[in-house]
């Protein structure tokens, strides 16, 4: 059982959302029973929020309105222009690229994309196992709203996505953003046909249509295109059922995140 002294030592990391999941839970359990530590934590959080607010609203820290406009002009002019020569070079590059593709380049490209997708799928399967099943990630997951602020709107959109299927019911369990082996995922965990199921969305190469990933051991995993992202459905279910689930989710999820 965590004591007040431990809580004070961990307070900074707790406030910065840097604690491991287990430690975080222990600390929260302590806070539920200790009004002194709860007050201390509330005060610290208020202090941080006020600092953020003071910083954001300080007049003397704000840029001159003309600075941003001037900056755009400077940056645009720092871009290398498309001269006649560069345009010609570009056309030659394109022509060479097309010739290469005709000669087998597309095969190489597809093969590379395929191996990247397989690698991401393995990481997604690991995230399902270590986050949804055993809850033993090294880095604490954060809320999708928070992730939306930090990493972009699609994470926030995932917070409101409601997966629907025709062949069963879905019981929502958890939504967050988590990191496994350096890959960040938007992660929705739900129960489908009695199995703990993960829907994971991340940056990466996506297949043109939902397809099963050739992973021999562990749960079945299907990849799906989600706009400019790639999604994975992972569950300890029959492979065909996992593929059907991915097919059912692909279109509505893409539209929701667009």
């Amino acid at each position, binding site marked *: 059982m965590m004591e007040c002294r431990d809580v004070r030592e961990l307070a900074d990391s707790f406030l*910065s959302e840097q604690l491991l999941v287990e430690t975080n839970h222990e600390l929260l359990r302590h806070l539920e029973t200790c009004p002194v530590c709860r007050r201390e934590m509330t005060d*610290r959080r208020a202090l941080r929020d006020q*600092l953020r607010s003071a*910083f*954001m609203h300080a007049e003397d*820290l704000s*840029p001159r309105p003309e600075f941003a406009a001037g900056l755009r002009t400077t940056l645009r002019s*720092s871009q290398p222009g498309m001269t006649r020569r560069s345009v010609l070079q570009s056309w030659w590059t394109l022509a060479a690229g097309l010739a290469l593709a005709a000669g087998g380049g597309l095969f190489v490209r597809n093969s590379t994309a395929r191996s990247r997708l397989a690698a991401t799928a393995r990481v997604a399967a690991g995230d399902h196992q270590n986050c949804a099943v055993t809850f033993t990630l090294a880095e604490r997951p954060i809320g999708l709203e928070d992730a939306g602020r*930090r990493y972009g709107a699609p994470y926030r959109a995932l917070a409101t996505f409601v997966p629907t299927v025709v062949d069963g019911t879905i019981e929502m369990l958890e939504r967050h953003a988590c990191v496994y082996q350096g890959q960040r995922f938007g992660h929705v965990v739900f129960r489908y046909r009695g199995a703990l199921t993960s829907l994971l969305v991340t*940056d990466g190469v996506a297949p043109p249509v939902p397809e099963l990933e050739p992973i021999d051991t562990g749960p079945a995993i299907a990849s799906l295109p989600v706009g400019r992202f790639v999604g994975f459905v992972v569950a300890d279910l029959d492979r065909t059922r996992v593929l059907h689930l991915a097919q059912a989710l692909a279109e509505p999820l893409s539209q929701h995140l667009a």
Partner: protein
Amino acid sequence: MSVDLEPDRWRVFEAEAMPHVDRLFRHAMWLAGNRTEAEDLVQETLVQALQSFHRFAPGTNCRAWLVTILQHVRSNRRRKQGRIVVDSSLEERLANVVPFVPPVPDGITDEDMLLAMREIPAHHQEVILLCDVEEMTYKEIAGALEIPIGTVMSRLHRGRELLRTALARRGAGPAAMGTADKVGR
């Protein structure tokens, strides 16, 4: 596939990076302390960011990426000017010897807060700003400041304590100095 890459790159860069100019400027302004240097810092940061935009991973934290570049630009400038380097091991030892941390005072104004921040050492200010204002992770802060994660943690710990002490010293509220004093102000 370099055809049409330049206009496309600018369009993506504009959408991803330009919304952060206000925050980036505030950060630069706080660090530099004068408008001319802050504008110069931000401009150099964005030029570098645009040139190396292919290294930015879409979907990751663009603001943290920009702040990291800004910190590196500033750090290189300071290195050229021969500014003093902080002794990290000394900091970590100091982090463990604070005898008393006053309670967080009530009635703090934004002005109190920023003045108190100015009273604490600059390297503590930096870590507090990156963590509490820019919401960067310890790992991102360590990368931006080119210091170990352990140093990030000790600077943050010590910095937050110093900030509370500075706030209490400024007499920001009754919790720090008593209601009578507050009324008498």
